[in-house]
């Protein structure tokens, strides 16, 4: 038992370092990029990977590797914004619903039922379509469906926590409701929320990239992975490197975050 716990901690360390490395690359993307991601060079459009352009060039002769490195920043940033949004909203609503109970709880839960009735990505696509195309609109649309998952988890935990002895002790000690929520309930709920978010972050990144792949998120010419893949579709026959490399970047990133999520669960989940 102890040994497997240790192993999980080591894995967590390794994957955290890998994730931090990726985040580092995303933050300093424009410094690492060998070329200006927006500079077009009409003498070398759609040229295959070679020593000068490791991942080839796109239709305007822009360096694909530089665009991948610079595009990482916005993909990561949007994913983290979305993760922060859904965890905060989900935790607050879940705690309030679970702790208040009664009518408040019923109303909030039925609202969540309504949102859950839409298949997630379908709703996000429709919402983006209606409120208009744009990066932050896609984040908002996805967050609108995504937070319910967290709210349900937090609510069910809060319901079982609020009658535990230590909460009653705090109540008898004269703690206010908000203090109980912040100091008794939140610390118990947080590890589960973090675990769920860590396991979810890869999916969020894929969903965001998926919307921009449909042309619903980014505005060209700024590089973004999903949109780069969208552009690459037309050149599939002549310039397959345009779709292969951004896709590999996305796959590797999602895999690292999924591995990190699994190891976070192994360390935090008392069952393992």
């Amino acid at each position, binding site marked *: 038992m102890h040994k497997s716990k240790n192993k999980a901690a080591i894995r967590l360390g390794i994957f955290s370092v890998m994730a931090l490395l990726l985040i580092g690359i995303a933050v300093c993307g424009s410094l690492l990029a060998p070329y200006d991601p927006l500079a077009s060079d009409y003498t070398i459009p759609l040229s295959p990977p070679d020593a000068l352009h490791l991942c080839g060039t796109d239709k305007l002769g822009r360096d694909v590797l530089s665009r991948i490195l610079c595009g990482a920043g916005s993909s990561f940033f949007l994913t983290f914004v979305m993760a922060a949004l859904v965890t905060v909203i989900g935790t607050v609503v879940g705690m309030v619903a679970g702790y208040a109970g009664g009518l408040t709880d019923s109303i909030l839960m*039925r*609202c969540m*039922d*309504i*949102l859950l*009735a*839409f*298949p*997630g*990505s*379908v*709703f996000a*696509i*429709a*919402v*983006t*379509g*209606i*409120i*208009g195309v744009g990066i932050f609109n896609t984040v908002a649309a996805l967050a609108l469906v995504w937070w319910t998952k967290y709210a349900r988890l937090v609510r069910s935990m809060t319901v079982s926590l609020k009658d535990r002895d230590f909460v009653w002790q705090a109540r008898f000690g004269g703690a206010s409701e908000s203090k109980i929520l912040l100091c008794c309930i939140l610390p118990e709920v947080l590890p589960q929320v973090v675990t769920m978010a860590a396991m979810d972050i*890869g999916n969020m990144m*894929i969903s965001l*990239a*998926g919307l921009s*792949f*449909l*042309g*619903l998120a980014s505005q060209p010419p700024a590089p973004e992975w*999903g949109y780069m*893949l969208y552009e*690459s*579709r037309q050149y*599939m*026959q002549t310039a*397959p490197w345009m*779709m*292969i490399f951004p*896709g590999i970047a*996305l*796959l590797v990133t*999602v*895999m690292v975050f*999924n591995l990190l999520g699994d190891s976070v669960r192994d360390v935090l989940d008392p069952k393992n």
Partner: protein
Amino acid sequence: MENRLSGVKRYFTRHFVQRRLAELIFVLLGVTFLTFIITSAAPSDAAEMYFLSHGITPSETLLEQTRQEMGLNAPVLVRYVRWLGEALTGNLGESYQFGESVFAQLSRKLPATVQLAGGALVVTVAVSFPLGIAAAVRKNKLADWLIRLISFVGISLPNFWLALILLYYFGVVLKWFPVISAGDLKSMVLPVMTLAIPLCCSYVRQIRTAVLEELGREYVTGARARGIPEWRIMAGHVLPGALTPIVTMICLSIGSLLGGAAIVETIFGWPGIGSMVVDAIRVRDYPVIQGYVIWMAVIYLGVSLLGDIACRLLDPQLRRRKGATADA
């Protein structure tokens, strides 16, 4: 025994289905209302879209007059009730883009999507069950590690990228399948694979967990001690026991299949409702988007209701336990 059975039956017919139906109606009202609100909050309204789609740039007075005629100036709630009344008779309005009724358009395009999603589901079940069971039986052996490794990569694959890669390799390089869908069986292969591969990978993982959990129960040890052959334990006891979580999973994946279909259909040019709605979004064809969202929600809710009923039929424990608490 007779008494208890009839009690279960009574609970089943009177409470469960009624409660679920009431919930369903409530949620549907919410879904339609939410869709309606979001649509009416959109920057351009029906009157403007009507003129623009006919190639006319309307003056402000003309717009105002048309809004009056179309009843767009009434309060939101009044418009919602009016619209809901129409929707209940099957009239979801007309597409701005084609002038065709949304209902007709949806029912014409739905079969293609169902075909795709159904195909993917069949492939997924056929592939993931043997693999998931094999991984569980050969736990921590080479086969298990391989299956788990592949399925891990699979769940991290973005489905739109997978679609591009499949299209490139099988369509452009090998030329086995058409790059642009002709709507026939051969053009169905790649879209079905795109939908099925990630789904397979997550199923394999979950089937493995469910089977392992059943295998760890005491009755399995007991059956082994009595000398019952391993395959009979598996087929007769472990699999039926592991079925409930899997049925729930299948119902939940209908949602992701329908959602995923939008992206996959767009890439492969498959003429289903997914590619239809993406086109509609590009030109802000609101009635089509509205109709699509509502149909999807209805289908999804219907399937999850069926799934719940199936789970109850499969798992007598769940039926009895929930029945007892509700009757008490």
